Every structure is written in structure tokens, then in C-alpha cells.
């Protein structure tokens, strides 16, 4: 399979600390890849380096054959690359529906047209579909900031998928989410993967979630890839168990 996203020998150091130390990985079209590892293993730094939010010390990132190393989030977004963060990143004063519309408005129409366009920018129907899919219809008119953490997390994820991205990097989508929502979230991601056809890279500590969602898993420890392969194989890897449980 031709790689869709290719990360080559990515390194990010803070002085003597090597947060990411020569990571190489590839993601195919429509593939869902899980990234696991103990806290401080460099997973989020890897995401930030891929997405141009921090400048890598060395290494390269290619997306669909194009070198995207160091590109700004805006440029990446225009190429169909989105992300979510560990912490909530919703627009708290806007309604749920307006959050979703704001998430995709830059991709609709021309700049002068958008200047005085209607608030839904022709995205209302798509926003309503996403609201339905994420089961947020009953709260769609409320300000996002007034909802529970779990609901805001769903909005956050729905926003990342609003522009129909080709690649989404999800950073701990289950963090702080009620266990009853975790299964719903996994089903949603599977559904979006089928309907939108994008590739996902998912950082997560919830092993059950990642093992069920991702056909390919990478385990990072101290900035390096310690093991990768099918979830069962990675889960039973002795070095991975030692990294999580200690010697």
C-alpha cells in the first residue's frame, strides 16, 4: 500500500532531553493507526511535530507524496489534515451547531463571499448530519461551554471531522470521557472511517478502546518506537509490558 502519511526519522530535542528520537512511521489511505505508550513517551510531541505546531529538530513528514515538514496548521488544514487535542478546544460561547459550522467555514466559498455570507455558509445541512451522528441534536442550540465535558469532547471530535479531512490525528479522544461514551465514540470513529474514508492516527491510554479500534498499533517509549504491529502482538510484547508495568 502506498503510504498516505510518512514520518521519516523524526527527532525533537529540548536541550539534552530527546522527546522524540528518530521515529519513522507510515499510515496508508483509510488506515487507523493507534499510538500508545506511557506518559512522557513523546506521543503528543510527535503529533505536534507532524502538524507544524512545534519545529522538529530533524526528520521529515510527507503527506500524499508532498513534503509538509514545518507547514503551519492553516496550510495543513487546507491539505485536509486535522487534529484534536488532549484538552477541549471548543468555542465555548458559540452554539454546538455554530461550532461545527465554524470548523468548516474556511473551506466554503470565496473570501469576499464569506465576508457577508449567511451564518451557516451553506454548511447547515452537513452540520445537522454530524449533530445527528454524534447524538447532539437535543443540545445543538446550546452554547458549547454549557455542556458536560463528555458532550464537549464529542463536539471537539465532530469539529475535526466537519471539513471531511483526509487525515485526522486524535490525541486521547477518550480522556475524561464517561466509560459509557467510550464505546459510542469508537463506533462513531469506525462509522466516520467508513463514510468519509480518511486515515486516523489515534493516541490513547485506554487499551481496550485502541485494541478494538486500530488494526495497527505503535508503542512509543522514551521518544522511540518500541514495538509495532497488530494490537494483540503489541499487547503481548514483553518489552511493551515492561515499559508499562516496570521490570
Amino acid at each position, binding site marked *: 500500500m502506498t503510504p498516505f502519511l510518512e514520518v521519516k526519522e523524526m527527532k525533537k530535542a529540548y536541550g539534552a532531553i530527546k522527546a522524540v528520537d528518530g521515529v519513522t512511521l507510515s499510515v496508508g489511505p483509510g488506515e487507523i493507526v493507534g499510538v500508545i505508550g506511557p506518559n512522557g513517551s513523546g506521543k503528543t510531541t510527535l503529533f505536534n511535530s507532524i*502538524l507544524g505546531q512545534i519545529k522538529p529538530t530533524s526528520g521529515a513528514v510527507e503527506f500524499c507524496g508532498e513534503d509538509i515538514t514545518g507547514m*503551519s*496548521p*492553516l496550510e495543513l*488544514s*487546507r491539505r485536509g489534515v*486535522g*487534529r484534536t*487535542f488532549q484538552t477541549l*478546544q*471548543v*468555542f*465555548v*460561547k*458559540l452554539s454546538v451547531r*455554530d*461550532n461545527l*459550522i*465554524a*470548523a*468548516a*467555514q*474556511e*473551506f*466554503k466559498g470565496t*473570501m469576499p463571499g*464569506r*465576508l*457577508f*455570507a*449567511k*451564518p*451557516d*455558509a451553506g454548511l447547515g445541512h452537513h452540520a445537522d448530519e454530524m449533530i445527528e451522528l454524534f447524538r447532539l441534536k437535543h443540545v445543538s442550540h446550546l452554547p458549547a461551554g454549557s455542556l458536560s465535558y463528555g458532550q464537549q469532547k464529542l463536539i471537539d471530535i465532530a*469539529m*475535526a471531522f466537519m*471539513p471531511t479531512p483526509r487525515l485526522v490525528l486524535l490525541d486521547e479522544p477518550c480522556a475524561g470521557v464517561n466509560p459509557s461514551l467510550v464505546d459510542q465514540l469508537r463506533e462513531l470513529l469506525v462509522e466516520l472511517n467508513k463514510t468519509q474514508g480518511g486515515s486516523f492516527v489515534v493516541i490513547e491510554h485506554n487499551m481496550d478502546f485502541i485494541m478494538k479500534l486500530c488494526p495497527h498499533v505503535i508503542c512509543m517509549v522514551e521518544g522511540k518506537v518500541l514495538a509495532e504491529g497488530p494490537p494483540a502482538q503489541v499487547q503481548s510484547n514483553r518489552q511493551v509490558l515492561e515499559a508499562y508495568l516496570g521490570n
Partner: protein
Amino acid sequence: MADLLQLILSGTATGAIYALCALGFTLLWQASGTINFAQGEFVMIPAFVMLFFINTAGLPLWVAFLLTCLVAMLLIATLGLSIGVKQLVKAGVTAQAMPFESPFPDGLLALGAMKVSYADVGTLLLAGLIVVGLQLFLNRTVTGRAMQAVAQNTDAAKVLGINVQRMVLYTFLINAVLAVVAALLVTPTYLAKFDMGESIGLKAFYAAIIGGFNQTRGALLGGVLVGVLENLMGAYVSPAYKEGVALMLFLIVIIFRPEGLLGKTEERKV
């Protein structure tokens, strides 16, 4: 009673001008995290630009106003102008106060027992129109929503592909128009003078803090409150204390409600 109402109405008109300036402070703060201490000069420059178009080019007031909006958008969308611009006008144009034609007719309008000037009524109407228009733009257009999104969460906006720099530029352009309108309304009373921005800029800054720096409606309330109380202080206590009203209110708010009357406490992560 009629006197009191008259003073309140007239104070509200002055306050509306402060509010327009204060609105510029809060919009810029929300969009770019910038406090624009040149805000007063942003009002002074358009006054002189309009004077140029009226006196030198011989254009009617409304044409001068529209042209000044364009010039202000080009010139004002820069920070750090305060001292330089002030001295430039003083040295290169004039240090004298220049008279400025009012956009409203002279005379008084009788509202029952009250008599209010056409200028006050016109100021209130124009300022109200600008504020309503701005609110419609921010809440009813996709670009307005995007500007709000940037103000609420810049990081998320960037990742979602919203052009943050463009939204900040729009905020500066809106601020330029607010400044031109404020100049149009305030200069007939204050006269066009190189240091006219000091007092307006400072009062608008106080007004924005009094109302709540992170709320546009706070800026409106702060502006009107300062304008009305100044008028009441001048009439019932002493005109000598009038100029101190904004500072006094500012101090009270900072001590007892630092987030402002309508402001909301915001958490910041470090």
C-alpha cells in the same frame, strides 16, 4: 426632573462615543490579545484627515467621512502609533485647536419638558446604528462567527483552518471605522487638536475595563456609564471633578470587581 433626564440623555450621547472607542479596545483584545494604547490617536487622526478632505479638497462632510474610513483602514491598522503620530500632527499640521463641522443641525429638540440638542440625538442614533450593525455582522455572518471563534480559542481556530491573521486584520479594520465614527461625533465638541486622543483614549480604556474587557456589551455599558456620570458630576457637584469620574469608577471596579461589571473571569493555563 426634566433637567436630570436631559443630563442623562446628553451624558448617554457622550458615553456612546466613549463606548465606540471602548468597543475597539475590547474587540482588539479579544481577537489578538492586544491592548491598543494608541486608540485615542486612532480617533484624532481621522478628525484631521476629514478636516483635510473638507477644508483643502472642498468635499462635503459625508464624502469626507467615507474617504476617511478608507484612509483610516489603510493607515490605522498598525500598532505603536501613539506618540509618533501625536508629535507628527503637532509639528507638521498644527498645534492649534481646529473647528470641525457637526454632521447634525444646530438647535434643540423638545421631548415633553426636556430639550435635547439634535447633536445628542444624532450621536445616539448613529452610535446605536453602528453598534447594532456590528453585532449583526459578528453574529449573523460566517466571517463574524469566525472572528468570534478566533477570539474564544485561537489555537483551535488555527488547527481548524480559520485564517487567524485575516480575522485579526478584520478586527483592526472594524476598529478603524469605529474610530472614524467616534472622530466624526466627538470633534465638533472637543475640536480637532493634536492631543485630543489622550482624553478620549484614556476614558475609553477606563470604560472598557469598567464594563469588562472581555465583553463587547461591557464596553458599551462602561462608555455610557462614564458619559452619564460625568454629566451628573459636572451639573450637581462641580465641573472640576468631571474629568475624574472615569478614573474614580475605574478604581472602584478594579478594587471590588476586577473582571468588570459585565466581564467574566477567565482561567488561563500556564
